[in-house]
């Protein structure tokens, strides 16, 4: 496997009892590459993401991340390896402010006294500001509680985690589904910034315009299988819809469909 591949899955399969939610997914993501995963509801997109983020363990198959075969026992495992996920349901604590949320579960401390370790608020605040700067996320006041923020700001906080922790791969599951026009634009700008700084990204989205605006490559799932792997330059929205609905199947995936 070549050095510029950050994530590769081989024959990744997940069965829930008799339901074959994901079947033999071979997927490659290169460093600095932005890939969109598309497909109808129930096509296997979320199942795929749950395997590579450690939320679930695959029935069969291999996950090779950053050159090493991995078996994540949980989301914390995946996060420690460098995979940061922005979940559809935002995993933020409403009553805490921005640095508290970014560092939740991995707080910086001054002295190690077990659970009673003293928090290093200043270091966390400074790291937060650096992370926000790198993603060009603008949050008016990082000491504001999440409760008092708009949907867009919340999404930005969730995304800023990635930059703060120098993660090697960011996965976003429909990051703009619940956002207004301006907020969507802001999140898309952040994604462009990630592209410029060479951070790889997997974006799950139903929004065709957004996908064609942002990513390099589109992978289409249908009925638990990958049915197309399309470079953005060589395809168009009608074509992608044809793959999603099953009117077409990629030449290399004929046997799978």
């Amino acid at each position, binding site marked *: 496997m070549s050095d510029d591949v950050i994530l590769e899955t081989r024959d990744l399969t997940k069965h829930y009892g008799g339901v074959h939610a994901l079947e033999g997914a071979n997927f490659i993501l290169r460093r600095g590459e932005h890939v969109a995963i598309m497909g109808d509801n129930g096509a296997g997109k979320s199942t795929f993401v749950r395997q590579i983020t450690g939320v679930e363990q695959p029935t069969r198959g291999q996950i090779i991340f950053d050159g090493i075969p991995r078996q994540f026992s949980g989301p914390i495992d995946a996060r420690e390896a460098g995979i940061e996920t922005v979940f559809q349901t935002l995993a933020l*604590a409403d*009553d805490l402010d921005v640095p508290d949320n970014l560092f*939740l579960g*991995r707080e910086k401390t001054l002295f190690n006294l077990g*659970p009673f*370790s003293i*928090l290093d608020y200043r270091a966390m605040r400074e790291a937060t*500001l650096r992370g926000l700067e790198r993603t060009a996320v603008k949050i008016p006041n990082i000491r504001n509680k999440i409760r008092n923020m*708009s949907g867009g700001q919340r999404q930005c906080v969730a995304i800023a985690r990635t930059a703060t922790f120098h993660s090697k791969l960011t996965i976003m599951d429909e990051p703009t589904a619940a956002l207004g026009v*301006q907020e969507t634009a802001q999140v898309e700008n952040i994604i462009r910034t990630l592209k410029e700084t060479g951070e790889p990204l997997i974006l799950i989205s139903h929004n065709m315009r957004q996908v064609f605006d942002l990513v390099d490559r589109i992978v289409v799932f249908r009925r638990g299988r990958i049915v197309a792997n399309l470079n953005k330059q060589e395809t168009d929205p009608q074509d992608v819809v044809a793959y999603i609905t099953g009117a077409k199947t990629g030449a290399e995936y004929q046997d799978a469909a």
Partner: protein
Amino acid sequence: MSETTHGTGGLTFDASRRVWPNELNIFGALVLIVLIFEVLGALLMGQSFLFDTQGRFGSIFNEQRLYIIILQVSIVGIIAIGVTQVIISGGIDLSSGSVVGATAMIAMSFAQVAEVNGHPNPKAVFGPAFMDLPVIVPVVVGLACGLVAGLINGLLIAYTRIPPFIATLGMMVTARGVAKWWSKGQPISFPTDSYAMIGNGLGGWMPVFIFVGLAILFQLILKYTVYGKHTYAIGSNEDAARMSGIKVARHKVLVYVIAGMLAALAALVLSSKNLTAQAGMGVMYELDAIAMAVIGGVSLSGGRGSVVGTVLGALIFGVIISGFTFLRLDAYYQEMVKGAIIVGAVVLDQYRQRFASQR
């Protein structure tokens, strides 16, 4: 970072929305209640509530009243410090009053003197080997009782996933049973002098000293340690806390253990102060402690509140009880007004929460 003080799109920051600490509101309420008693006192009794207008104490305050106000809330206040943490973590603890009863009985029986006025101690629970023990023995035994009660609460809540209300309700009934069974309902009296110091030392200020010291300690712990941050996080969004890698179950056990041990400490102070332990000690203390926390701005839905708020809530409690005595009103009215204030505090909190989410 001045460039981050403006947002893109609609995300602008209005400095006037800067957060006004809720503790200031509660302090305002406390001042307001004192003022009401001052006015009523001037009109009905012709004397001041808190100030020394008759030159009895040689200071501007009525020191006797101030002492009583804080002393009468400090024992339940110790419990309320633990209850505050439980509620912030999204739980509830109904067992603290019964834990006080059971702990007082058990600890007191390890704190007895051998002889009373030359006669053998008539209330002895154990034989002579357990008489005149150093004070550390009943203190350790008592704190261990609180630890065990808190541990059972915490393990039930964290690992069987039964609601905290049910788990601690069970402990409330069980611990009261233990308190009655321990000496078959007999009160236990005649503690050693050193045990009596826990509640009567420092010229009677010991309970206040312990309450204020613990309040400061736990205010700092909640604000500046990982334990505090995780307690708020779990109460705020338990799923997010779990996804962030916080060991939620283990943390909950710790929170209930701390609450249990604080209730046990309150039992030591109370039984020492009264020089006796009875099976009925601490009845309804759990509700008073919860009420202090709620009046002090601790949100029953979890995630919000502070020990400072609870201390202010406890003082509001003390002022109301003293104020009613001062106005020579029946104790019945006290309870009615207490009830109304508890409900009022929760209604206000809900209103504030809705207002905050609208802006």
